[in-house]
């Protein structure tokens, strides 16, 4: 069987190359994977995207951050083990990443910080018990009591056709997501929902032009794909 079949041009990208492309995008533009309110992200930059604090009555806003590691993709057929709740079907990709969630725990009981990434409050300094929400607007850009956790995230999804800079591109759409070992189950469900929404938004910012998939070696107007074949993305079209 010919590569081009009934078309003039054929392109195939193995999953290793696809991961190289995604790694290059995420490493060059890490702000796509790191979001936070002003206590964690003092200003938007290449490294991180500043977002608004979560408003809540009686508080100056809940300070938060979300940071993902560069996702690793596995194209059908399955090479990367998945939790039993997920399965990789034809035309799908799986994704593995780690999410670090942080909040700036302002006020309330002091608790020793066992997260090495958090700031320690000096226990010798007395606090005014009436001051549950100290006005720390002068200290914005500096999380005073960060509390963080890391979660392993697995997901499956499919490719979508999109546009980047006026040319055809592939995008990544989420079908299902699973956290591992979070209890109770209800908390896992809430977090899975939250992370699914976050991951969908992050994936929406990740697109790869079709021309980049074949290093612009030949002009290609896709009429078939791009689609996930077996461990590769392929497309066919006209010259």
């Amino acid at each position, binding site marked *: 069987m*010919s590569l*081009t079949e009934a078309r003039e041009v054929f*392109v195939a*990208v*193995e999953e290793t*190359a696809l991961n190289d492309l995604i790694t290059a995008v995420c490493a060059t533009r890490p702000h796509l994977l790191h979001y936070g309110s002003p206590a964690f992200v003092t200003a938007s930059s290449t490294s991180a995207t500043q977002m608004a604090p979560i408003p809540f009555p009686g508080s100056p806003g809940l300070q938060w951050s979300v940071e993902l590691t560069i996702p690793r993709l596995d194209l059908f057929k399955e090479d990367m083990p998945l939790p039993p709740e997920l399965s990789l079907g034809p035309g799908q990709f799986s994704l593995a990443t780690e999410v670090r969630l942080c909040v700036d725990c302002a006020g309330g009981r002091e608790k020793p910080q066992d997260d090495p990434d958090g700031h320690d409050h000096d226990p010798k300094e007395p606090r005014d018990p009436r001051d549950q929400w100290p006005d720390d607007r002068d200290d914005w850009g500096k999380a005073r009591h960060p509390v963080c956790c890391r979660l392993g995230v697995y997901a499956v999804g499919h490719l979508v056709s999109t546009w980047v800079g006026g040319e055809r591109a592939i995008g990544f759409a989420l079908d299902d997501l699973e956290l591992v070992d979070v209890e109770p189950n209800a908390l896992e469900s809430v977090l899975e929902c939250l992370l699914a929404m976050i991951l969908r938004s992050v994936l929406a910012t990740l697109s790869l032009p079709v021309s980049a998939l074949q*290093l*612009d070696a*030949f002009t290609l107007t896709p009429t078939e794909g791009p689609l996930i074949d077996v461990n590769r993305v392929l497309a066919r079209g006209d*010259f």
Partner: protein
Amino acid sequence: MSEIVAAIDEGAAQQLFDFEVASLGTMATSGASSLGPFAVTYAVTGMLSNGTIDLIAPGTVRVADLRLDWHIDLSFQLDIGDFIPDIHIPQICVHIPCVGDVCTPKIDIVWPTVSVPVSFGDFVKTTVDLGVAISLVAAIWKVEGVVQGVPNLQFGVATAALLTAIGLAVAAAVGWVPLIGPFVAVLVAAVLAAVGIAGLTGLLGPILTPFISGTRFPITEVPAHFQVLPSAGPFDPAVFVTVDSLGAEVQHNPPEDELVVLADISA
């Protein structure tokens, strides 16, 4: 297995070749050579067109009926005396009544050397095999078709027409020479006999063959530092990957022959 595979069939290869050949534009060269017994200086232009592509595994792109349209401007020095003898007008005496005999001295008409410019154009067709060559030049991966062997250019009718053009040019170049009138036909015939078909092919072949054999036909170029995404703002710099290796070959994937580019990349 290569990480990225891009392939085109013969139809796309034909479109690619037509575009690249048209992009070559007009080629030019100049220099000095010989035309039979004459030393010539020349300026030649050539333009390639047409050609039917046949992909042949494992690494040949055959171009049939590749056409080269060419035009030559050449000039050579013609010593007329090499072809027709100098004219010797003897002493002539007339008798003038009541005066006597008056005589002219002998006069030698020495033929000059004239410059003969010739301008002529025609075309030639040939079939060439291109080998697929990969090179990394100035951080650019280049995939090119390189002519294998020396194409045999058949000039045919063009040589006869060029001989005719040379004859006309000689006649025009000597027209001003006193007393040449009766000898132009003899001179032209002698010059053309000296040049001959062999002289023309001996001139044209080495000049025109490099227009084909020396041409590298671009297939594709890939920067070693390949831009995946352009810059999209102050927080979105351009994204690059490194093309670690690039290869190209002709594959027979039944029922088609396809030109295939293979690459490995890293982030």
